[in-house]
């Protein structure tokens, strides 16, 4: 039985039980590619090479047991055959049987090795783990430099973990970050999931559209051929029936041209309708731009406040509908004023605002306070003794 056809015993979508992140399918492809490569390159390094296929624990070999499958545990990355795993670990966690290891292993953490080189496997696992936690994106950062710094720091942590440098310190950093930013990590993970889904949906759509286009093109070709045929037949008929050759030929051409143009016009109209429909139904236009960031819709925005957060309140009075004071009454009666749009009630309001503007402002105290602040606060020093400089923020608007 060929080595290359392995029964697909593993579930189709692999979920890493720790982080819950769906692993991409790439691992499978990479796996088989590497298999092929290792056969063709002719090197014969026996360690961890698929050709050896001997379980270090039970020493059973592939040639005896064609369906032999090897598993590794990310705890220590020692490989052993499936039956050994079953035998040793089915009754609960046990020590790794490889001489010199002895680490406590659990059955459910065993999985198939994706890479030839066990070191790579380990590294990839570490990177996956780090990546699941440090999953910030470029748009989270103000500047590119900040993002690169972040990436650098993450790489430092990763490097330390892979090579076992400063493990305690690094792990502590890791955990601290995970604890502090748990929420954001979760959010970013969600976003990634969504993106992947919409990406594959978009891919599907694109493939479908491409297919439709091909179909349409083919159809058009056929139709054109048919028309040309018909035209020729028509011309022949006409010639046969004795009409003038030149005019017939010219007519024939004209008809053909008209038909083509009609077809094109019809196709164009159809396209426009389709585009309008697409726009209406919210789908993207003809082609999907690859690599475009999909903006996650933010939380529902606050309703628009037309007053921009500003509320002017009358705290010392309530405006009445009318005032008996003769000044108001006379003004109301004067058509020349009212017809011009002079608002007497608004005048009353202004007067009352003026009546109480500053009633609760205690100048002596507030000025003393202000001066004290000005003296102690050097940075703001000149601004306070200003000529009306209301806003230290000169360039940008609030």
């Amino acid at each position: 039985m060929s080595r290359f056809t392995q029964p697909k015993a593993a579930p189709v979508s692999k979920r890493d039980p720790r982080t819950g992140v769906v692993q991409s399918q790439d691992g499978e492809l990479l796996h088989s590619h590497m298999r092929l490569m290792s056969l063709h390159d002719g090197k014969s390094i026996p360690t961890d090479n698929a050709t050896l296929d001997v379980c270090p624990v039970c020493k059973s070999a592939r040639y005896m047991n064609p369906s032999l499958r090897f598993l590794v545990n990310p705890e220590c990355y020692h490989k052993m055959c499936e039956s050994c795993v079953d035998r040793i670990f089915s009754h609960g966690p046990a020590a790794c049987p490889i001489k010199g290891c002895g680490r406590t292993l659990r059955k459910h953490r065993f999985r198939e090795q994706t890479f030839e080189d066990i070191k790579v496997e380990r590294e990839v696992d570490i990177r996956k783990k780090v990546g699941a936690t440090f999953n910030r994106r470029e748009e989270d950062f103000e500047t590119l430099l900040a993002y690169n710094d972040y990436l650098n720091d993450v790489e430092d942590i990763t490097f330390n973990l892979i090579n076992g440098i400063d493990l305690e310190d690094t792990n502590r950093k890791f955990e601290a970050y995970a604890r502090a930013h748990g929420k954001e990590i979760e959010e970013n993970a969600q976003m990634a999931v969504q993106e992947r889904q919409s990406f594959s949906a978009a891919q599907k759509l694109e493939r479908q559209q491409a297919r439709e286009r091909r179909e349409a093109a083919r159809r058009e070709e056929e139709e054109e051929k048919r028309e040309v045929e018909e035209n020729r037949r028509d011309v022949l008929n006409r010639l046969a029936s004795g009409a003038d050759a030149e005019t017939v030929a010219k007519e024939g051409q004209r008809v053909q041209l008209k038909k083509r143009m009609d077809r094109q016009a019809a196709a164009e109209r159809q396209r426009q309708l389709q585009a309008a429909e697409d726009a209406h139904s919210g789908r993207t236009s003809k082609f999907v731009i690859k690599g475009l960031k999909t903006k996650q819709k933010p939380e529902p925005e606050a309703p628009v406040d037309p007053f921009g957060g500003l509320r002017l309140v009358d705290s010392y009075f309530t405006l009445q509908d009318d005032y008996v004071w003769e000044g108001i009454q006379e003004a109301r009666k004067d058509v020349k004023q009212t017809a011009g749009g002079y608002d007497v009630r608004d005048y009353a309001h202004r007067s009352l605002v003026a009546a109480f503007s500053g009633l609760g402002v205690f100048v002596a105290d507030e000025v003393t306070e202000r001066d004290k602040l000005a003296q102690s606060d050097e940075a703001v020093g000149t601004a306070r003794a200003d000529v009306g400089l209301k806003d230290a923020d000169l360039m940008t608007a609030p």
Partner: protein
Amino acid sequence: MTQRLNEDDLYRTSSQYRLWSFSPESLATLRRKTHELAIARASQYAGTSNSSDGDAFDCLTSEECLRLVRRYLDQTRTTSDHFKWPITVKATAAQYLARFYLSNSPLTYPPKEIYKTVLFLACKTEATHMTLSEYARRISTPADEVLAPEYKVMQALRFTLDVRQPYRGLKGVLMELLNLAEGRVGEVEGVETGGAAALQAEMLGLELPSKTAQTMWRVRDSGKVEGKALVDRINAAYSAARTILDGPALLTDAYFLYTPSQILLAALHLADEPLTSFYLRTKLPLTSDLRPKILATIAACAELLGSFSGSQVLSKEERAALERKLEGCRDPSTRDLVGSHAVAKRGTDGDEEAEEKARKKKAARDKALKEGDDLFGPSLNGKG
């Protein structure tokens, strides 16, 4: 994230609050600094001037300066009335003058030369129109003398031109009082009043104003005050308050130390105290902790206004005497404001000169370019 702005917050945005409000201490300090600077400046010239006595520092004291300024505040009021200008112009002009002399001294700029300019500026900013020539003619002063100090005044005002005044507010209070007398009220949140009818009744039964009250209203016989008499009382109180706002309010430091609202209520307090207290009871909740402070502030302002008397304004003779003294010790560099104004105007500031130079350079360059293109080469003797 809503920002609630009430009447007090609005006042705090004004330039009057930000730049022209002082505590008594800071006001005194500022005046002292100004006076000292002026003395130092004037004494520079004491040595070079022709005055005989070595005691060149016998100049006006800061108290005398203050009194001289006050005299001209009064003069400003008179002149504004002479032109029959609205009270807003009068108040603005008086405030401009008072503010001017916070950072300048009569020793450097005698008020006689400044107040006419100030008044003209006020009539412009308060939307009252008169051409300079007409104004100058009517106050018998050459037009350029009126104009010359204008820039200096603007500078001294730190380019803030708005003066918040108490007159419109007083009218607002009048409106409300008359409505209250009529049995109508605009209830203020948090204030227990007992309703419009109760308030009206209370008003009718108010204590009479004291003997020292400024209002002209007196009741013939004591007892219940009927409707019309109440209206008279209110109008009389308004009238008296208005007079106080026209006079003492402008001739004291009220505007620097208090807000327009406090000033007008203080004036009303002086006019008819029981009426004012009643009114304030309908405005300030008893439980508010601002209430005692507000009442105290109004009382203090009332005291300031009430303590002012006409005798504090210099008489004509006193003024003349001071001005003679001033003549001997004033800063001569500011003597000819018209001249220095003209010189300054003829001059250029830095960028105009730079522009001139740049233009000349460009013209020369263009010319050279053109000549270079000439068929026969550039001209030989410089003639284009």
